[in-house]
């Protein structure tokens, strides 16, 4: 397993823990606005974990803490706590966010393919890593598209502009693009929110099939979706982690009143 820490520092003790990500007492703020408040949780390897909660409760923010996307915003800052991925605190100075992001892929709420061809979209991550061999790239592009269940639909028009695809296809293309970099963890921020039910079903199927190889964290608005695809579910409310457990338990027998209210649709 490659390390995302800068090569100069050698504190690479292989971690045997089951946890892909550990969040310890994390508080996070945009400027003065504290949006995450003392969050602690573990993301298990090769499981699908859902984040649910009313909009604005900080799900996306937490997700973006996992691959340090938040630091692209000038006013974002961590108040306290740590995020540990594969045994490394990713907010340590020795960690290179570029390497980190190669290992933790992300799929966004609205599909955002590049204004390039389908092929170029999938090959992008490889190209920036300096992969030159055309054969290798071709192979990975094909595999990624197959994995993303898009290959059959696009194999004859790899050089068409990505914007010619339908919304659902575009989102699967974005997933393929992420897979091509061969990450270990995939973060998905409401990947189906702008898709129709048929396209949603296809993406859900895809997520389930990817579980074998990847650790997946999905933010979702849709309770049924969380129930269908995830092994574990975390419920957030106003920047706090209210409840985190196996999905079945959360849905059938929630411990907290707020969770129950949310699941029953009393607010949100």
């Amino acid at each position, binding site marked *: 397993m490659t390390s995302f820490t800068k090569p100069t520092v050698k504190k690479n003790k292989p971690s045997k823990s089951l946890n892909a990500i550990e969040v310890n007492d994390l508080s996070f703020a945009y400027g003065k606005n504290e949006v995450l408040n003392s969050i602690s949780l573990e993301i298990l390897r090769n499981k699908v974990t859902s984040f649910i909660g009313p909009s604005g409760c900080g799900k996306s923010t937490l997700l973006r803490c996992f691959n340090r996307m938040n630091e692209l915003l000038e006013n974002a800052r961590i108040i306290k706590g740590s995020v540990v991925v594969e045994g490394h605190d990713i907010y340590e100075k020795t960690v290179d966010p570029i390497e980190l992001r190669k290992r933790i892929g*992300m799929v966004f709420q609205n599909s955002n393919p*590049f204004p390039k061809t389908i092929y170029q979209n999938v090959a*992008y*991550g490889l190209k*920036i890593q300096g992969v030159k061999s055309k054969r290798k790239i071709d192979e990975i592009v094909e595999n990624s598209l197959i994995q993303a269940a898009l290959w059959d639909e696009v194999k004859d028009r790899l050089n068409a502009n990505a914007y010619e695809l339908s919304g659902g296809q575009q989102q699967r293309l*974005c997933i393929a*693009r992420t897979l091509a970099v061969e990450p270990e963890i995939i973060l998905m921020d409401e990947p189906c929110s702008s898709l129709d039910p048929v396209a949603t079903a296809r993406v859900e199927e895809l997520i389930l099939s990817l579980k074998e190889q990847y650790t997946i964290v999905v933010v979702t608005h849709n309770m049924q979706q969380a129930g269908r695809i995830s092994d574990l579910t975390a419920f957030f409310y106003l920047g706090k982690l209210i409840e985190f457990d196996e999905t079945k338990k959360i849905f059938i027998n929630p411990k907290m009143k707020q969770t129950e209210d949310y699941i029953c649709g009393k607010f949100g």
Partner: protein
Amino acid sequence: MFSSKKSFSSKRKETWIKTIFGSSAVTSIIILSLIIAFLFKEGIGFFGQNKSELDLFRKSGMEFSSLITGQHDSQTLIYRYLENILANESKYAESMEPDSSEIISAQDRNKKLLEFSRNFQDIKEILLEYEKDIVEMAAETKQFILIQNLIKELRLIARKHKLTEEDFSISMDEIDKRKKFSSREIEKWSNYFFRQGFEDEAKSLSALLINYDTSLAPFYYYDRTTEIVESYSITYQPLIRKQNQEFEEIFKNFNPKFSLKKSVEDFRKVKIAFVEYLNTTELFDKKIKEWNPEKPYPLADAFSSFFLGRDWITNSARQDWYGVLPLLSGSLLITLIALLLAVPFGLGSAIYVSQVANTKEKSLIKPAIELIASIPSILIGFFGISMLGGWITVFADERLNSLTAGCLLALMAVPTIFSLAEDALNNVSLRLREASFALGATKLQTCLRVVIPSALSGMISAVLLGFGRVIGETMVVLLCAGNRIAIPDFTEGFSVLAEPVHTMTGIIAQEMGEVEYESIHYRALFMVGIVLFLITLGINFFAQNLTHKIQNK
């Protein structure tokens, strides 16, 4: 009830908004077409006037005289080269010991060249006299034709207004055939028009009398033009032949040894110039032989002498030329220099500000660049004359040249390019950049591979609008371009970048105030304006198309 009322009023609001925006769009279209119509109305007459000027140029014999002058000039050029070599050589000899053997033998060798150059000067003098005669003759003839034309015009006016013929009975045919108009006659006609109440016409006739005092010289127009051609074959051609033979002898058989390396090189250049000259003499002979004062110019020449004309010569004693090429090439050269400087700087800072800079840097750089746009161009011109010109003399002979103007225009184009390019870059959605970062791209990779390609057409149109800004700028080029009307010598390599040039905008600003209303010069300036307008219109159109393309993407 309530809702229908609401929709009624909102409908009215809508129509109001439509009318306001619609009418302002219509107004701008109307103004634009008025400007175009006006420009063309004033400018298009140029070609008709140019054609009659050209015809006059030919008919009067001016064309003939300028053919000869041209030929003479190229001879003189070769002669000057030779003189120059001899002068350099003798200067060198003076610096040496007077009786050193090297010098003596060198002087011996150069003797033949010296002798030739002296002979040549004698012949040149004769030719010069001859040329003068011809020019004078042509000038008189031209004047005569103008008078002839004026009288013909008056004849038409008289006929149109059905004036009685009493004192002005000369017929059209007779005017054409006449070789002389006496001052008595002209005075008589002037009085006649005055009595008829045509004061302007009377004045234009009496103006002739003031210019030509009491009597007009007799003009033997037709005889004279034939005389011109004949005199060429009798006097000039033998001389020119003889001279060319002498030249040929010297250049083909004589290989002087010079003391100076420079002279050897110069002599080689003279040789090349001479071969070129010999090649043109044949064409020249043919032109002279075919020259026919009665043959009118083809209409196409009225156009090509403007669009392809290499000379812009006004208020000349002989013939004015209105060729747009020197001005166009000057404008384009300056624009090229300005863009070469402004594009990297403007785009570079746009990329930096939109992709790399933090808020603090942004708040510093952006207003600074935008502030440049607020400097009045005349002040930028001052700066060019007083400071930049001095720095430029490090590379160039003159303070004011295309490089000076180009640098200043670059300064003025940077804010335009910067602002538009920055907009285009900022319009690339954050989502695309995030997608790239999430795949492990660095800022630089994201910028080069995602942001710039997505903003490319916007950036190109920023450059095109910068082009429009530069080529239309007047004050700075008028002050700092050096204002020499000549096509830049592109064979000179990089030093072409620092030649004094004149520009389309500069010439209009400089000459428009002094030209006579509706004269050919006035119209020529309008034509230059039209060329400028078409260029900027084309560029803007192109830029808009590009912007449109990205918006549709």
